[in-house]
């Protein structure tokens, strides 16, 4: 019965359109406006999804699939610097090395060494996980899962060792990095500044490369990361790197990522 009613309505609507007597909502429009309106839903930028209290939602809404991938940059490069490099962070010309970041003499020399031997010494080649900002440039993508019951954020990585990182959002004071054993993902605390998730991290070890391309760091590394989602399909990531043993001053790099439909593919590092 319901089907019958729908079919009847549809037939009537078709007749009306054919006669050109009336307009019937979105379905009955001139050919030119039909084209424009048909394109509108795909061309329009979808709004940033939010929780009921207005907090930005960085992960999937219920019933949705998706994750963050396709970074607009493949290595940390100081903002405002333009250099050519491939997806692994290998510079097109070694002469550009000094432009990438405010290196100390030793770190520039080590960066050049790694570049000139084709990144052969990358710990990721022997399945030591990338960490720090590098994980957010991995082709495996990642998800940012807000556990609001426990005031935590988990970043779950599709690349590297498919690990996860914890960001404490409960206002705790992080431990003194001088008093902890450094780890790959460090110790992270986060807070909101408007719609931006700001994450402070320290307590890293120096057994990994924190960027594609072999940018050096020491255990004195600390990061200030800013995550924002200006629209449904865009994640803006900004990171300020502070490592007074490696760089002459703090410096900032940023890139965007795309919301990709589907699920993170299985990927495991094996030697």
């Amino acid at each position, binding site marked *: 019965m319901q089907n019958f009613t729908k079919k009847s309505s549809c037939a009537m609507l078709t007749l009306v359109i054919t006669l050109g007597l009336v307009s019937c909502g979105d379905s009955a429009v001139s050919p030119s406006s039909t084209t424009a309106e048909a394109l509108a839903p795909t061309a329009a930028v979808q709004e940033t999804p939010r929780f009921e209290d207005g907090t930005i939602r960085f992960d999937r809404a219920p019933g949705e699939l998706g994750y963050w991938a396709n970074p607009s940059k493949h290595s940390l490069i100081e903002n405002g610097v333009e250099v050519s490099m491939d997806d692994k962070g290998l510079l097109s010309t070694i002469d550009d090395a000094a432009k990438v970041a405010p290196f100390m*003499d*030793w770190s*520039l*020399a*080590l960066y050049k*060494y*790694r570049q000139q*031997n084709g990144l*052969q*010494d990358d*710990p990721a080649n022997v399945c030591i996980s990338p960490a720090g900002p590098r994980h957010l440039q991995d082709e495996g993508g990642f998800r940012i899962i807000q556990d609001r019951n426990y005031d935590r954020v988990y970043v779950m990585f599709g690349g590297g060792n498919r690990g996860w990182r914890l960001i404490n959002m409960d206002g705790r004071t992080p431990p003194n990095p001088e008093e902890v*054993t*450094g780890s790959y993902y460090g110790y992270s605390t986060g807070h909101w500044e408007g719609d931006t998730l700001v994450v402070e991290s320290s307590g890293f*070890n*120096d*057994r*990994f*490369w924190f960027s594609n391309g072999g940018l*050096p*760091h*020491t*255990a*004195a590394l600390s990061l200030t990361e800013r995550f924002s989602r200006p629209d449904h399909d865009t994640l803006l990531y900004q990171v300020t790197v502070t490592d*007074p*043993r*490696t760089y002459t001053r703090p410096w900032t790099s940023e890139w965007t990522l795309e919301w990709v439909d589907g699920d993170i593919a299985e990927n495991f590092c094996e030697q």
Partner: protein
Amino acid sequence: MKWSIQVLHFLLASIVGMCASAQEGYPLDGTWRGEYGQPGAEGTLAVVVMEWDGSVINGRINPGRNTINFTSASLNPENWSVHFEATSPQGQPIVVDGVLENIGSYTRTITGTWKVGDVESPIVLTRE
């Protein structure tokens, strides 16, 4: 006494272990071990621990009860040459010069000379 020595060994092992965790950062950071002495003669073991603090390379030789602290140290990144100096408990100057090799390896080496007073010996320090 025996207990004290065991505790000391444990602490030393812990320090060495912590330092050994460094790998990809400042190339000299960590613990290095080698033997110096005249060819054919029994070598003298040296353990060297170095740490870069952003402006100075801090270091010590044979950490423990008879630690000898560096008086100066430098790394020239243009050719990866290493130089450090200290003074032995007997007041003799210790001067070590070498070149950092196989820099991408966890077990990289410093190959050069270890000079105590006027006696110079070859040495290869390997990172642990």
